[in-house]
């Protein structure tokens, strides 16, 4: 069972990664429509129609959004910004969690207990609820750039949990004979952590980066469902009326801002970005799971 599962997880993860890579490369090799190009009317079967246009109609492979913008192009271009945000937050969180976990694992005492306590305390609420509470509340007080605040809060909310994982791994590694030998010969704490502990746990940390990326992308999608987006909406004037549309292509924004359209029969507008984001989350989760059991055997 385990061998079957591991290979399948890794294989599926790698297939999805290849697809993701293709998505990132496509804009460089294919001539795609501008993802911000509006088309408010189109002739279909001799009649003028308003967007959103259905998939396959008028050359729109995946249909269009409410502004007549090509959904396929928006999803392809949206991959860059979504992944950039997800990976940046995940890597940033890991980079902060490593020293925090290593030092609290080494010094234990109050420092170690503080990391464990904050991690438990933050675990007293589901991450989505906690992130939403903080973002909604803090934006009134902190006058910072929204993207910075958004990324910063997501980064910090998951930081104690990851630091606690590193702390536990560090404590486990510190009991190994080679570390005890290093302590006995008088190596400094920094040297022990850098040369004897970090190399042992770096595999787990690499896996964590993949798992954290999946986690961050998942939160981006879930936050979008509650109208909390990384980037903003834009309004355009069409004749007498104004239409509010999602702005720059980003998967979370595209699925969250258009989620109610599914009830109005225009299912493709939120569903395709959701599929893109969902499969990317699955890709990183499968990669983390596959690598963990294949190489780390935990």
């Amino acid at each position, binding site marked *: *069972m*385990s061998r*079957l*599962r591991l290979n*399948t*997880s890794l294989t*599926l993860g790698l297939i999805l990664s290849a697809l993701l890579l293709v998505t990132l490369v496509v804009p460089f090799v294919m001539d795609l429509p501008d993802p911000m190009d509006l088309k408010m009317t189109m002739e279909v079967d001799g009649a003028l129609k308003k967007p959103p246009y259905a998939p396959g109609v008028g050359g729109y492979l995946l249909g269009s959004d409410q502004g007549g913008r090509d959904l396929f192009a928006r999803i392809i271009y949206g991959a860059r910004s979504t992944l950039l945000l997800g990976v940046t937050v995940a890597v940033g969180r890991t980079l902060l969690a490593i020293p925090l976990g290593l030092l609290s694992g080494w010094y234990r005492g109050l420092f170690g207990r503080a990391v464990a306590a904050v991690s*438990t*305390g933050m*675990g*007293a*609420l*589901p*991450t*989505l*609820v906690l992130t*939403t*509470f*903080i973002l*909604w*509340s*803090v934006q*009134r*007080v902190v006058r910072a750039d929204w993207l910075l605040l958004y990324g910063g809060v997501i980064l910090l909310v998951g930081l104690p949990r990851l630091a606690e994982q590193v702390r536990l791994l560090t404590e486990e590694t510190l009991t190994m004979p080679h570390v005890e030998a290093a302590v006995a010969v008088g190596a400094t704490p920094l040297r022990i952590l850098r040369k004897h502990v970090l190399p042992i746990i770096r595999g787990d940390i690499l896996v964590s980066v993949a798992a954290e990326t999946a986690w961050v992308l*998942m939160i981006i*999608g*879930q936050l979008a*469902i*509650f*109208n909390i987006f990384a980037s903003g909406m834009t309004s355009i004037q069409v004749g007498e009326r104004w239409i509010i549309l999602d702005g720059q292509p980003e998967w979370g924004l595209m*699925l969250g801002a258009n*989620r109610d359209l*599914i*009830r109005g*029969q225009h*299912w493709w507008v*939120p*569903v395709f970005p*959701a*599929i893109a*984001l*969902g*499969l990317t*989350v*699955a890709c990183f*989760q*499968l990669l983390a*799971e596959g690598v963990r059991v294949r190489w780390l055997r935990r």
Partner: protein
Amino acid sequence: MYGLQGVIRLWVSRVVWFLVVAVLAVMLIHLRAAYVWEERPIKDQRGMTRIVEMPVFSWEEYRRVVKAYPGDLFAGNLYYRTNPRNEGTRFSEILREAWWNSFRLFVAAAGIGVAAGVLVGTLVGLRSLLPRVLALILSIGGLSLPDFLVVFIGQAVTIWTYRVYDWKPWLIISEPSLPKGWILPLGVLILPPLGFAARLTASAMDDIMRLDYIRTARSKGLHEVRVVLGHALRNAIPRILSGLPTLLNVVLSSMIVVERLTAWPGMAFWLMGESYQSTYSGPDGIVKAVVGVTPQLIATAGILFIAWFLLLDGLAHTVRILFSVRFEEVKR
């Protein structure tokens, strides 16, 4: 004895955490209520200065609303209003109904998901290919696919079947009073515990089925089903229970998203709701009031949710502690 000590320590820490987190959550949520409307000059796109009324955060107002909240909460003076002229509905009544709806969904999803997951995982012990593949698909699908994607696909499927066959296998918007209204939210929420329990059980069964006592049981001529259910599954239970806290956490988190997307009348609306400024003409002229899901209501729903979350987490850990102690005693 050790088990009892562990349980007492666990519950004391849970109570302390509840108090700390509840106070912090109330203080955090009230930041949203602490603003006053002030006229501020702003420059528009043409460079013209205009006087616009804007919400400005005020520490004085913050202290006032935070101080007033416990009194309102304990006196039951919290009301849900959509219009400032109406008296509104007492929030405790609304919250009770919302919690009951969420609780029913949660219990059904966790119960069915865990039971089905353990069943699928146990079948792995029978060493045939089909249960293995099934457990694999469920564990990958249930744990890797995000909840919002499964809901969207479920909604898209029902739209498609309605268009093509004039038939709805389930409702897009959930309705607790109709069986069809349960299918989509319950189906989506069952997936994570099902996948998680199937994976835990399958991996435990995989290890246990290789042990000597299983070989002995087989050599004595016991039927394979009895070996799996009577010997292997019994000893796999502590490992399954060790994943219970994570499992409940996953279901509760997903529940918020599923409730929102399927419009289930549960806690999510109150936890993640939004308030808005409403104006009306009163006897004293134009009056402004904050109505809708105000920060006070969100804080109250938040306290209930934290209590529920910690209670379930504590119960899951208690079961795990008691079972692992019993398991150790049996082993000795």
